[in-house]
């Protein structure tokens, strides 16, 4: 039960987060129109990028499947909107995403990480093909209308709640045995196996949690888009943007994606207005810049600066290593 005993610093952090949450919650009361739209997309991408981080952050397995789960959530909502009450659909979307993540995870997470990355890369396209085919066989139209009475601030609050849930779950995982196991896996999978950690199970569980959140995000947003169609719901761009935002922020801290999402959404807004036909090219350039110039993201930069300041002040005792860079044994594990 030590999970529920908080230190003073943790109480402080919790209070800060609660304060930020309340601040974020009053945004729709003061903003509307275009500003509110941008904040909605910031909150949505924060939820998606942070849930992506839950799995990919500690394990270093780049999941490119956000769009697949996001789309599934949209489709579950669109398909059931006339049959079941909306809150149940949100739950159902989460379960549908979790089930698919479990299947994918069980098949791909037992072997080398690179196979998982490849599999996740095509997952959205695969589900899209199946959906298109299914609708073709059933003879229904390729698109579905989702009409429900909601205002923009309501979407905002729903997404904000979802984001808060992602943060709480992420924070709880970080404190739990599961989170500890994942950090060991991320540092050196071989060591983790020798410690008696069931690495496959830990990875699958985290992937399921992370994907279920993406599906719920899809379910929340579906009625806002109004019309769900395979090409839109399973747009692979969503996956790539989520990955790039999380990387920009940095993947070593739970709040990393938040730091990446805000500047990226604003920048992307500018780019897609100024160069509407070159977005793909510019997204690629952003990718390369992040990989080469700031491999540890903005949070990495902040922490480095913090450390340097600490050293200059003469308080730092000995060399401090960032937790991800200490994996000398790992070389052997995959070369053999």
């Amino acid at each position, binding site marked *: 039960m030590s999970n529920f005993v908080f230190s003073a610093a943790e109480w402080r952090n919790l209070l800060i987060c609660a304060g930020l949450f309340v601040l974020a919650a009053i945004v729709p009361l003061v903003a509307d129109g275009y500003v509110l739209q941008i904040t909605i997309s910031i909150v949505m991408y924060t939820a998606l990028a942070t849930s992506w981080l839950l799995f990919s952050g500690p394990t270093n397995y780049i999941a490119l499947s956000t769009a697949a789960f996001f789309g599934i959530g949209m489709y579950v909502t669109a398909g059931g909107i006339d049959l079941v009450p909306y809150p149940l659909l949100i739950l159902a979307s989460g379960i549908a995403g979790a089930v698919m993540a479990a299947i994918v995870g069980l098949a791909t997470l037992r072997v080398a990480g*690179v196979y998982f990355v490849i*599999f996740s890369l095509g997952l959205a396209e695969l589900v899209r*093909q199946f959906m298109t*085919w299914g609708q073709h066989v059933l003879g229904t139209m390729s698109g579905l209308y989702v009409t429900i009475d909601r205002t923009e601030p309501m979407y905002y609050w729903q997404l904000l709640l979802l984001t808060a849930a992602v943060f709480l779950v992420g924070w709880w995982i970080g404190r739990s045995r599961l989170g500890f196991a994942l950090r060991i896996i991320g540092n050196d999978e071989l060591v983790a196996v020798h410690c008696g950690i069931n690495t496959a199970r830990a990875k699958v569980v985290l992937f399921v949690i992370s994907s279920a959140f993406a599906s719920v995000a899809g379910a929340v947003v579906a009625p806002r888009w109004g019309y769900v169609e395979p090409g839109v719901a399973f747009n*692979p761009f969503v996956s790539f943007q989520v990955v790039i935002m999380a990387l920009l922020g940095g993947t070593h801290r739970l709040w990393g994606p938040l730091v990446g999402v805000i500047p990226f959404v604003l920048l992307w807004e500018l780019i897609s207005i100024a160069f509407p036909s070159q977005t793909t090219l510019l997204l690629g350039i952003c990718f390369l810049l992040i*990989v080469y110039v700031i491999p540890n993201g903005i949070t990495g930069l902040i922490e480095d600066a913090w450390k340097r300041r600490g050293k200059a002040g003469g308080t730092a005792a000995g060399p401090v290593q960032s937790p991800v860079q200490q994996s000398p044994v790992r070389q052997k594990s995959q070369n*053999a």
Partner: protein
Amino acid sequence: MDIVIIGLLLGGTYALMAIGLQLQYGVARIMNLANGEFLIAGAFSTFWFYAATQASPLFALFLVAPVAFVLNWAIYRVLLQPLVRRAKSQGKLEVDSILATFGISFISVGILLAIFGGQYLDYAYLAQPIFIFGERYGLNRVVAFLASAALCTALYLWLHKTRAGLALRAVSVNPSASGLVAINVARTSALAFALGGAVTAVGGGLLSMFLTFDVSLGVVFTLKALVIVILGGVGDIRGTIVAAFILGFAETAVATLIDPGLTLAAAYVLFMIVLLARPEGLFGRRTA
């Protein structure tokens, strides 16, 4: 019978593009997610060459191959080698190279969109029937298959009979030990990467003789090539060729019997089976 022959013809052409990726991943250790974009670039250049000159697209390949070789060489030297040097482990290199080539793939798509636009491109070359066992097949498919088979054979012989090929195979088995026996690993990796890119682009040129392309298809071909490489086993050309035929058959069977929209699903089913039953691939070495 139809399925068998069309699958054979398709698989033979797939073999070439997959060998390209095999060289890049098996030897240079770069999981190149921009592979499909080079295939598309090869296909588009061939289209463009044919539209401009009306000469056989096969001649275009003599132009496509060297250009793709030089481009890939430059990409490896400028963008990927720093990652190889920076990487502390194979795992870290994989993550970095996946992200970097992902970025490269987006940039390539952007450039291709700017040059060729977003529409579907195809052309009619040798669109006359040829009769095999009394059934009609497109002559262009047969020609593409023969060209691909010739190139695969040449590559196989080059890898297994020459000194340079031996060096490539040595690096593929163990880069650090290859360095000890006086193989220039950096150079050999760059060569393998560049050659792989050229082979893939030529594969794209051949595929363009009978398939319709648009810019967004690059990812799909990257996935197909990856499935083939993994199915066949990383580091083994024979496996790649066998796996390419298997994928060709599977896709043709699914397309004719169920729905042409499900070809990627066929590849994925194969992928799942391999991962569950034999993760090291058909001809792969079982890792300890």
